[in-house]
């Protein structure tokens, strides 16, 4: 047939585009559930807690990050509700004071130094400017990890192309840090952000 070559080319092109855009991310990232479900919504909206009750900058400038199990134990020494996840929390973790092996979406590699104190206290950035609406979620989505680099998918950002038509937050790569710092005309040395 006369057009068979063009069709083959087009088929190859379309297949590559399909695999590259649709299938590739699923292959590149492994998915794992969190050890436990946790609802920020329940804690913030229903219990009236604020972000800073658990995630705060200590007096010595360190950020507490994900609170230790002792913090959970302050309220959850006994189950407060009836969810199966809370039962696991109390029996498996609180009772033995074992830390929950959370998979951290925003975990940066060891050589990155990110001071929350400078960003939250000095620059007065809102949590959402980097972490989005994570503080309002009802469930913890599966943790996606890059099979090659070992990074969380959140570092690259949700869009595999890192192109956003709506101009929203892309990710937490070094480029993202630099973009924001350039916009604010900040100057740095390498070891300002690396350790």
């Amino acid at each position, binding site marked *: 047939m006369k057009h068979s070559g063009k069709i083959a080319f087009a088929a190859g092109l379309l297949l590559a585009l399909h695999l590259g855009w649709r299938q590739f991310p699923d292959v590149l990232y492994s998915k794992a559930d969190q050890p436990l479900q946790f609802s920020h919504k329940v804690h913030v909206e229903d219990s009236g807690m604020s972000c800073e009750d658990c995630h705060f*900058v*200590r*007096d*010595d*400038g*360190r950020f507490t990050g994900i609170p230790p199990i002792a913090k959970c134990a302050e309220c959850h020494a006994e189950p407060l509700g009836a969810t199966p996840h809370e039962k696991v929390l109390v029996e498996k973790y609180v009772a033995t004071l074992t830390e929950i092996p959370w998979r951290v979406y925003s975990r940066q*590699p*060891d*050589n990155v*130094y990110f*001071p*929350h*104190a*400078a960003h939250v*206290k*000095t620059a007065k950035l809102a949590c959402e400017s980097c972490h989005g609406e994570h503080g309002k979620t009802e469930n913890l989505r599966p943790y996606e990890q890059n099979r090659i680099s070992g990074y969380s998918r959140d570092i690259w950002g949700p869009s595999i192309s890192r192109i956003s038509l709506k101009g929203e937050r892309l990710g937490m790569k070094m480029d993202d840090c630099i973009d924001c*710092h350039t916009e604010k*005309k*900040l*100057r*740095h*040395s*390498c*070891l*300002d952000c*690396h*350790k």
Partner: protein
Amino acid sequence: MTKETVKTRPARYGMVIDLDRCNGCGACMIACAVENNVPACPEGVTDRTGITWMRVQKLSNGQSFPDSRTAFIPVMCQQCGDKTPCVSVCPQQAVEVDEASGIVDQMPQRCLGCRYCMVACPYHARYFNWWDPAWPNGMERTLNPDVAPRMRGVVEKCNFCHGRYQEARAKAAVDGAAERAVEYTTACAEACPTGAITFGDLDDPGSEVAQLAKSENAFRLLEKLGTGPKVHYISKRAWVRAAAGSSLAAETREVRHG
């Protein structure tokens, strides 16, 4: 127009080591290694291939018994202020002098491992990772969370405990200390049992380190090269001061581990 990432007054951190107080115990070396995650060595490492950010050297007055005397001198990156040999030779821009602190920063992720800087450094203060860092028997659990382990193939050196500097800046951000330079101290200075090491801001005329650096028995290593080190030494002993002007004796000693 640019401004700095943290709105604090720039500092010029420096150190003064009183050699008449140094008894060569090596507390500074181990405090440094623990703070900065310097690994134990694999088999076959020598004193040339091993990593010792801070190395206490033995000095001898060259006399024979009973006039022989020993002194000790801790040598680490001298944090050159004027002509910084390592910065000028690095093809990767992996070394830079931080304007906010005066610290000569080494960026391991940028380093391509050519070791030109090691040749350029007159103080032998730079070390190359010939092996992947490894700790025996689960000892990596004791690593300092504030400092990342380096990988095989890159150069590293003393950076005046940059992890501590970062923490001090974070604390300054909480305290809102905008006008003062950030105050912190290095692991070696904190550990020294005899208080021989003083660390601080050389630009602050009231600081202890600035005053000690001006004392009459103060000197710097290889001052004739014009590198302007920010590490100063003090000794009342003339032969110790004289040793500072001469190049380190050719390293004939080769120690092999294991």
